[in-house]
């Protein structure tokens, strides 16, 4: 606790300090109290209830940034589903060479989209203008000289999502840290998670699951969003030839998610990445 307070250089006022201590003692996450969280070299804003970027996510996002190296001559497009604070696309836009990356981040929460937008300007990542359906010259996807990020409010589980959001598929890279906590485990989450972070960012099987194409038996295992992502990849041609899908998974979900990608998305090649704590954390898939 003492360490936490001393880490914020601004809280030298006693009253402010004790109020912060009180909030922390209530169980409020440190990151909401301090208002920021380092993510790779970036310092991102954190605001309740948007999911706080996790060190596991930081680790694999950096790993991805080293595995794939777009250049201004070979630019790539990136779609981040359930983008939250925007941490994944913003970090990639920051780490990859300018003019090499055009990123879109989608989230169902207006809070998340606002925060992602604020984070983009905080990190000096250029915001792209929303896609217009007006007829622009043929090469409307020409890459600008800087990396760009476009936060979009949309529900990816709505079947008409790709059209209503005005996306321009296919994408070279699809990333996602979708909600993956099964309902049974949600009950036992620490207060700092359950009482403060958006359940829509955590619950792998949202209560309105009727929208989902897969009311199957594993609808209680927190895998709904992986089915949804697989469907988007297979039905909407969201992923370019040779493109990759990189998703974070919860403890014990990596095999199921690989299965889903093999069977429902037609992604034959998958691998699993471990996090720094030796847990299976990421399923990486490539379309050949």
């Amino acid at each position, binding site marked *: 606790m003492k360490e936490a307070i001393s*880490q914020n250089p601004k809280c030298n006022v006693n009253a402010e300090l004790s109020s912060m201590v009180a909030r922390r003692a209530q169980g409020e*996450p*440190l*990151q909401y109290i301090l208002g920021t*969280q*380092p*993510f*790779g*070299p970036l310092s991102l804003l954190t605001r309740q209830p948007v*999911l*706080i970027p*996790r*060190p*596991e*996510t*930081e*680790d694999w996002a*950096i790993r991805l940034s080293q595995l794939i190296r777009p250049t201004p001559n070979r630019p790539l497009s990136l779609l981040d589903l359930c983008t939250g604070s925007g941490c994944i696309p913003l970090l990639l836009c920051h780490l990859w060479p300018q003019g090499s990356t055009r990123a879109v981040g989608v989230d169902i929460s207006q809070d998340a989209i606002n925060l992602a937008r604020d984070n983009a300007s905080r990190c000096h990542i250029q915001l792209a203008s929303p896609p217009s359906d007006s007829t622009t010259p043929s090469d409307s996807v020409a890459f600008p000289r800087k990396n760009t990020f476009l936060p979009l409010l949309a529900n990816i589980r709505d079947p008409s999502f790709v059209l209503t959001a005005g996306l321009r598929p296919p994408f070279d890279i699809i990333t996602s*840290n979708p*909600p*993956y*906590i099964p309902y049974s*485990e949600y009950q036992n*989450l*620490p207060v*700092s*998670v359950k009482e403060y*972070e958006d359940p829509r*960012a*955590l619950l792998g099987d949202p209560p309105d699951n009727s929208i989902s194409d897969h009311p199957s038996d594993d609808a209680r295992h927190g895998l709904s969003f992986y089915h949804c992502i697989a469907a988007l990849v297979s039905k909407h041609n969201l992923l370019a030839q040779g493109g990759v899908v990189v998703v*974070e*998974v*919860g*403890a014990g979900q990596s095999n199921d998610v690989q299965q889903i990608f093999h069977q429902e998305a037609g992604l034959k090649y998958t691998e699993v990445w471990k*996090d*720094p*704590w030796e*847990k299976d*954390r990421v399923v990486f898939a490539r379309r050949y």
Partner: protein
Amino acid sequence: MFRVACSRVSRAGLPQQSRPSRLWASTIAHENAGVWDVSPVVQVVRRKMERRAELQSQISDTISPAQHKQIMKQLTQTDRLSTAWEDWLKTRECLRETETLLEDTDPTMRSLAEEERERLSTVLDGYLDKTFPPLLVPPSTTSHLSAMMELKAGVGGSESALFLAEIMRMYTRLANSMRWKASIIASNETDNGGIKDAILEIQGEKAYDMLRWESGVHRVQRVPATEANGRVHTSTVAVVVLPLVEERGSSGSDEDLFSMDDIRIEVMRSRGAGGQHVNKTESAVRLTHVPTGITVSMQDERSQHQNKRRAFQVLTARLLDRKLSQEVVQRRDARRNLVASADRSEKIRTYNYAQDRVTDHRVGFSLKNLDAVLEGDALQEIIDVLSRKHQEDLLAEAMES
């Protein structure tokens, strides 16, 4: 006037008036050759110039471009020395001409000549003491490096921790006055305002070259604030100064120091299910360099990524330090060098409060006004003395080779 007359009369070789440099100690005045021509410094420079002339004579149409390039490279190393040497020879020649006029029949001319002789002597002295020595010493290969200072409280418990906080402040102040950037990258504080251990990063040109003399055990003698009986305690703080390589473009230089295959990265605590399940910050990281067994733990930063970066910085600094000290040992076999060879467990300096005095044991240099040292200003003076000693050692080394 008297000096001139004296040196001319005494054929027996009266020692020249004391010169500032110790290199002059054995120099004897010669009537005609002049004292300068037999100075060891001049002899070394002359040898180097002969070698240079030899190299220049090798340049011909018959050598290969590669050879040519190599010779040119060697020649550039003595370019500045060669310019200084030519100036020296000119001044020396002027002096010879002036000396002939000392016997002139015209008293006015004689007096003018003596004045001129005085002036030229001063100029030549300047070459010996100031111009030639730095040109003979090989340039520092570490002058671009920043420094990382590791401080650890030693003997003396909480008093030692209090003193650590004070000398850390001293280094921060010195850094400010040198226009270096000082940042505390790790610090382990005690309840009474002391610091058990800390890592200070000092970024700036020559930071490592100047601060490296601070490695060793610093001893404080005083009545601790916590001591009720007014007894003087002796406590220590150990300081290790490491060379810090800039991270940018690090891939090139780091690869020489270690291979990623030799590094074991451990995160310190378990996070249970991890990921979305937990939002507690667990950022501690530990690196182990397997071949040397060096481990670095870092937990002061808020994210694991930052701690990892810091830990790699510290590891790189330690490995580079190892490499540099090995190079020093290899280069100078028998020769004992002031600081580079100093054992880090050796007591290097005492801060004595009762006597208001700071003594550096390596050069036997004492300074009154302890506060001025802790404010950073007088510390600069001590460091200057140590740097000069180092330069002298290097020169002596260069002259032996």
